[in-house]
């Protein structure tokens, strides 16, 4: 296990593409995290000017709500990490190094395992990034700080990890299926932004939320700010057990399908 991780790390640590892409992800998400409050402030001040009732001030950096707020926002950027995964998987096919890895003495299952470890590492890194920025922003902006309050909604962090990992196993599956990086990335974007949204739109309520990517994103619901409550909508401010189960189910399914492809295919 550790050995496989060691091999995987050797493949990425000196790879420029990997660092450029993950660096870009960190930079972009960091900017969004730090800038989003001022955008919200702007909107609410503008709204107050025209609105007959006073609009409450919304702070997204308060402990413990910050965890749901940040993980919800970060959910939109996980596609970035999926692209990194696809590039690395399809590289193994275009360089034919997957073939060489097997010839040298990996089993096909080992190869899959090493890629799952890569996904795990990437998800872990993304989660760690949120924890760190969350703590910084939270300490700067919260008035009410105690260990219990800080960690009372930490479950969103775990949910976020699951969300990213599940999504990445989907990217893994597409990478193994298509083998060509451009095509695989195209397919991922197409499915994520067009195909599944259309299916979700056509399907009746109650069923549509079981579509894979929808289900994965559903894990963390839209944060329930005072603003929302004012409008009368009420979102989930907790993680539902069934959502977790569905998400884990899909992760297992994607991994299993990837294994079947890997097993059956001539490399």
């Amino acid at each position, binding site marked *: 296990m550790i*050995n496989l991780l060691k*091999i995987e790390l*050797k493949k990425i640590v000196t790879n420029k593409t990997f660092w450029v892409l993950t660096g870009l992800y960190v930079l972009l998400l960091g900017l969004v995290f730090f800038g989003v409050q001022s955008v919200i402030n702007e909107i609410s001040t503008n709204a107050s000017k025209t609105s007959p009732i006073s609009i409450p001030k919304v702070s997204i950096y308060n402990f413990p709500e910050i965890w749901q707020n940040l993980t919800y926002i970060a959910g939109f950027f996980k596609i970035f990490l999926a692209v990194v995964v696809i590039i690395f998987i399809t590289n193994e096919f275009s*360089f034919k190094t997957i073939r*060489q890895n097997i*010839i*040298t*003495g990996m089993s096909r299952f080992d190869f899959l395992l090493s890629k799952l470890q890569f996904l795990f590492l990437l998800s872990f890194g993304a989660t760690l990034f949120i924890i760190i920025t969350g703590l910084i922003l939270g300490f700067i902006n919260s008035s009410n700080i105690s260990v219990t309050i800080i960690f009372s909604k930490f479950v969103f962090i775990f949910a976020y990890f699951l969300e990213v990992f599940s999504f990445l196993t989907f990217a893994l599956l597409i990478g193994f299926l298509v083998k060509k990086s451009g095509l695989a990335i195209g397919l991922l974007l197409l499915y994520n932004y067009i195909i599944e949204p259309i299916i979700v739109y056509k399907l009746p309520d109650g069923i549509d939320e079981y579509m894979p990517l929808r289900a994965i994103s559903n894990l963390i619901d839209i944060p329930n700010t005072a603003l929302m409550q004012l409008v009368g909508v009420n979102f989930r401010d907790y993680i539902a057990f069934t959502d977790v189960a569905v998400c884990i189910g899909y992760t297992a399914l994607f991994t299993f399908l990837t294994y079947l492809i890997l097993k059956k295919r001539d490399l």
Partner: protein
Amino acid sequence: MSEIVLSLNKISKRFGRIKAVDELSLEVEKGNVFGILGPNGSGKTTTLGIILDVINPDSGYFQWFGKTPTKYERKKVGSIIESPIFYPYLSAVRNLKIIADIKGIPYNDIDRVINIVDLMERKNSKFKTYSLGMKQRLAIAAALLGNPQALIFDEPTNGLDPQGIAEIRELILTVASEGITILLASHLLDEVQKTCTHVAILEKGRKLSSGKVEDVLNESGTVEISSENLEELYVTINNCDIVKSVMRQGDKLTVKLDKKASSTDLNNFLFKKGIVLSHLTIRKKTLEKYFLEQLNE
């Protein structure tokens, strides 16, 4: 009874309508330098892919070291298939470290194999900056890593200059003399003759013949000779019992010898009869001719 390192039993593989490998059975014994000889597209690479578990055969089975193969058997085999494959953005050393990790070998063997293929000066250059010949050398170094019990070489001299080709053949002979079993696929008759002890000849995925190289590829079959007195030579040679047939071609005679006999035997015979040859060449069979013969038989 010597140890069987690799055995194939009626292995078949189709790619659509093409039968790439057709009921192929082989046995390679410990210490053999076993050549798989065949023209382009005869199924050599496919066969090697199957025994290294990257191509799933449609039927048949194979064994390494007498066992149904797992990754543990592959770790004891060093292989080059088709073209050198490495991570282009990693240096030679990093690439070899990955291979060492997979095989479970300590890193201190890396410098040894890099030295063998003479890449010490460039060991920290990225693989993609290597020339074709250097890539091939690195592939050979990778195969030698960790003293494998068997080596698989698919066209090992591809892309090498004449000196490189000579060095690699030398290397193969050296490695073989240490008792390591070698499986070598090639479309070059000459290469197989110079390096192998055993050979199997493939044609469209089928095995045409196999056995010891000197039995299968009897090169001393045909010689060209001439001397001062061609008439005398002609008469004498017709009475020689190792000669199967004689044909006059201009000022030379083309002589077909008995399977067991060599050109030296012929020369000795004539010398005893007091005839000195002014010309003697062994007609090497080209692979094409060999195949024509095999197919006509």
